[in-house]
C-alpha cells in the first residue's frame, strides 16, 4: 500500500465577488418551449429530467411558446402584470418608509414578483400557503387589503397583529396565508402536516409550502420531504432559488446536488424546475403541481429559478459580497418587463398604457399609505397598547401574567 495522500477541505465559492465581472454564460438555460409537459399522473421516475432543466414559456421575442403556454387569457395576464406592478410599487414605498424611520424593518421582492403573484392564481379559495417573508405577492394577488399590510408594517393602531410581529410577518387565515415565522424553514413541514390533515378529513383543500434556497439546508426541509413522500400529502413544496441567502451564495446550501429540485428525487417526489421570472411558466407549473395535489396524486417539488435583485433586507448591503452589476447580468431578465413585452406583443398592452398603469398604481399605493399613516407609524401616532402585549399569550390570561401586567401598571 502506498502512503495515503493528505485530504483537503472543500468550501464552495461563487464564481465572482465584488470587483469581478459577473458571467452567467455557463448557466445552462433551456430554450423557451423546449421542455415537455408530462401528464400530471406520470410516474415520478419517468420525469426525473425535469428537475435538471428550466421550464420556460416566454421566448426572446416575448412570444408564449411550447406545451406549457396557452393557459391564461388577456385579462388574466393583464391582472397578473398589475399584481406584479403593485407589489413593486408597494415595495418601493415601504422601503422608503423604513428609510424615513416610519418602521423598523422591511424586505423587498424586486425581481421575484412573478413567483408569488403567478402561483397565487393557481390556487382555490380555502387552500393554505405557508409562506416566507418574500411572498407578499400571495396577498396582493389574493385580494388581501393593502391597508392591512401597511398597518402591520407600521405596527399602528389598525395592525391586525397588534404590534406583536416584526414588519412583513403577515398572517391572514382568510386569505390562505399562514402566520409567517421569522425562524426559517419551520413552516415547510407544517404545510405538509396541514395537507395530511386535509387528506385525513377527506377535505378537498391543498397546501403550499415555501422556502428559500438557503433555508433548504435546515432539517425541517428534509423532514417535510420525507413526510410528504411517505403520506403522499396533497402539498406543493416550493423552493424559491433567488441565488442568495443574505451574503451566502446558493452553492453553499446546494452542495454537490445539481439543482435544488433534484433534492426531491431521492424521496420519489416529482420535481420541476421553472423560470421564476416568467409569469406564464410559473403559473403553468403551479397549475400542474396544484392539480396533482388536488387529484390526490401527492406532493410536487418546484424550484423557481430567480434572482434577488435588492438587498436581503433593510439591514443588508449586498455590495460587500457580490458585484453590483450581477443583477443586470442575470440571464432570466425582469419579470415585470417580460410580461409587459409579451402583452404588447399580444396587442393588448402598450408602452403608453404601461406608463399610465404604473402611475395609477403608484398613486393608489400612495393613497393607501396616507391612510395607513393616519393611523400611526411605528414611532408616532396611535399604536397598539402595552396591554395588547399581554393578551393572546394564552386563550385566557393566567394569574401570574395578570399580576405582571398590574405590576407594570399596564
Amino acid at each position, binding site marked *: 500500500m502506498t502512503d495515503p495522500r493528505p485530504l483537503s*477541505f472543500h*468550501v464552495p*465559492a461563487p464564481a465572482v*465577488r465584488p470587483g469581478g465581472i459577473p458571467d452567467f454564460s455557463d448557466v445552462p438555460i433551456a430554450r423557451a418551449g423546449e421542455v415537455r409537459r408530462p401528464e400530471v399522473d406520470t410516474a415520478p421516475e419517468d420525469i426525473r429530467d425535469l428537475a435538471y432543466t428550466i421550464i420556460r414559456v416566454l421566448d426572446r421575442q416575448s412570444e408564449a411558446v411550447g406545451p406549457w403556454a396557452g393557459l391564461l387569457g388577456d385579462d388574466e395576464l393583464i391582472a397578473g402584470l398589475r399584481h406584479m406592478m403593485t407589489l413593486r410599487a408597494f415595495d418601493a414605498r415601504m422601503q422608503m418608509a423604513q428609510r424615513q424611520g416610519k418602521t*423598523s*424593518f422591511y424586505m423587498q421582492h424586486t425581481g421575484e414578483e412573478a413567483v408569488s403573484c403567478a402561483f397565487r392564481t393557481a390556487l382555490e379559495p380555502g387552500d393554505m400557503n405557508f409562506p416566507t417573508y418574500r411572498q407578499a405577492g400571495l396577498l396582493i394577488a389574493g385580494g388581501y387589503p393593502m391597508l392591512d399590510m401597511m398597518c402591520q408594517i407600521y*405596527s399602528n393602531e389598525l*395592525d391586525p397583529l*397588534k*404590534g*406583536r*410581529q*416584526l*414588519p412583513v*410577518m403577515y398572517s391572514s387565515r382568510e386569505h390562505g396565508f399562514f402566520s409567517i*415565522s*421569522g*425562524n*426559517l*424553514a419551520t413552516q415547510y413541514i407544517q404545510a405538509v402536516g396541514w395537507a395530511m390533515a386535509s387528506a385525513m378529513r377527506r377535505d378537498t383543500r391543498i397546501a403550499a409550502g415555501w422556502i428559500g434556497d*438557503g*433555508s433548504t*439546508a*435546515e*432539517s*425541517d426541509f428534509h423532514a417535510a420531504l420525507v413526510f410528504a413522500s411517505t403520506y403522499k400529502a396533497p402539498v406543493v413544496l416550493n423552493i424559491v432559488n433567488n441565488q442568495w*441567502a*443574505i*451574503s*451566502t451564495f446558493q452553492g*453553499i*446550501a446546494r*452542495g454537490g446536488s445539481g439543482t435544488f429540485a433534484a433534492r426531491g428525487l431521492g424521496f420519489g417526489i416529482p420535481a420541476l424546475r421553472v423560470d421564476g421570472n416568467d409569469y406564464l411558466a410559473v403559473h403553468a407549473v403551479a397549475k400542474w403541481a396544484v392539480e396533482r395535489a388536488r387529484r390526490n396524486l401527492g406532493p410536487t417539488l418546484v424550484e423557481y429559478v430567480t434572482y434577488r435583485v435588492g438587498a436581503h433586507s433593510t*439591514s*443588508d448591503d449586498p455590495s*460587500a*459580497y457580490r458585484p453590483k452589476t450581477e443583477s443586470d447580468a442575470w440571464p432570466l431578465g425582469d419579470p415585470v418587463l417580460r410580461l409587459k413585452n409579451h402583452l404588447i406583443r399580444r396587442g393588448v398592452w402598450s408602452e403608453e398604457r404601461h406608463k399610465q398603469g404604473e402611475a395609477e398604481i403608484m398613486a393608489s399605493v400612495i393613497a393607501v399609505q396616507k391612510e395607513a399613516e393616519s393611523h400611526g407609524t*411605528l414611532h408616532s401616532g396611535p*399604536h*397598539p*397598547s*402595552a396591554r*395588547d*402585549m*399581554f393578551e393572546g*399569550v394564552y386563550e385566557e390570561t393566567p394569574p*401570574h*401574567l395578570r399580576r*405582571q*401586567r398590574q405590576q*407594570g401598571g*399596564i
Partner: protein
Amino acid sequence: MSRRTMVEAIRDALDISMQRDERVVVFGEDVGYFGGVFRCTQGLQQKFGASRCFDTPISELGIVGAAVGMAAYGLRPCVEIQFADYMYPAYDQIVSEAARLRYRSNGQFTAPLVVRMPTGGGIFGGQTHSQSPEALFTHVAGLKTVVPSNPHDAKGLLIAAIEDNDPVIFLEPKRLYNGPFDGHHDRPVTPWAKHPQGEVPDGHYTVPLGKAAIRRAGSAVTVLAYGTMVYVAEAAATETDIDAEIVDLRTLLPYDLETIAASVEKTGRCVVVHEATMTSGFGAELSALVQENCFYHLEAPVVRVTGWDTPYPHAQEWDYFPGPARVGRALKAAMEA
C-alpha cells in the same frame, strides 16, 4: 491598549485564538466571506483561509453538530449562531450531545467548543431577533454559560471560553456591541471609545470563567445583573440615588457564589435583573441561591425585575424591556421593604 467596540474585541479574541492555536476554527451563517451579520468575524477568512473560517449552510443543527464532531476529533471550534433566537434547531446537539459527551464516554470524548450568539433585545427586532435564552442553557448539566457586558471582558472571556475544555455558550448582548446601552432608548448611546471598559489590552489575556465583577460598589442593596442590564442598573441607581452595589455576573454558570454572597451579606438586600422572561428564568436560580446562602442577612425579600412572561413584542418593545424606571422602582421597593 486601545479603545474598541465589543464587536472589535470579539474579532480580536478570535483572531488571537486562531493565531495561537491552529486547532481553532470559526464558522457559521454568513461568517466567512462577509464576516458575519454583526461583522464579528470580518477579515478572518482573508487572514486564515477558508479552511479555518467559512460559511455554512443555514442549518444550526449542522453547525453545532459538526462542531461537536470536530471538537471530538481534537479541534476547537468556535461557531456562530446568527441570533440566539435561531439556536433552537441546534438545541438537541447542544443539550443531548455537546453537554453530555464527556460524561457518557467517561472522558474518552469531549466537546471543547464555543457557541457564540447575539442575545437580547432593544433593536426592534421582534420575536426572532430579541430573545434571551440563557436559562435554557444554565439548566443543562455540562454547559458553561457566559454573558459579557463590555469589550474588555468580551475579549478575555471569549479567549478563556475557547481555551476551556468544556462546551461554552457565549451570549453577546447585541445592544452592547457599540456602546453601554442603559435602557434610555431616547438618548444616544455613549460609544465604547468614550467608556473606560472600552479599553482593551492588545494581545492575549483571559478573564477567568466563573468570576463576577463589582461594577459599582455600594452598601444599601445588591443588584445581580449581567449583559445590558448592568448599565440599566447603573442608570437606575444613579437616578434613584440609591447606594446600590452592582454585581456583573459575567459567567452565569459556573456562578460566582462567593462574590454574590459577600455582597448580599454586606447590603442585606438584593434585586435580581434580567431581560429574559421571569418564570423559571435565571433570576429564579439567583434568588434561590441568595435565599439559601444569605437568609439570615436579608432585611427584605429578594426582588426580581425581568422581561414579562410574554413573547418578545415588536411595537411594545419599551413596555417589555425592563428599563431604568422599572429597575429604579424595584430598588426603592427593596429599600422600603
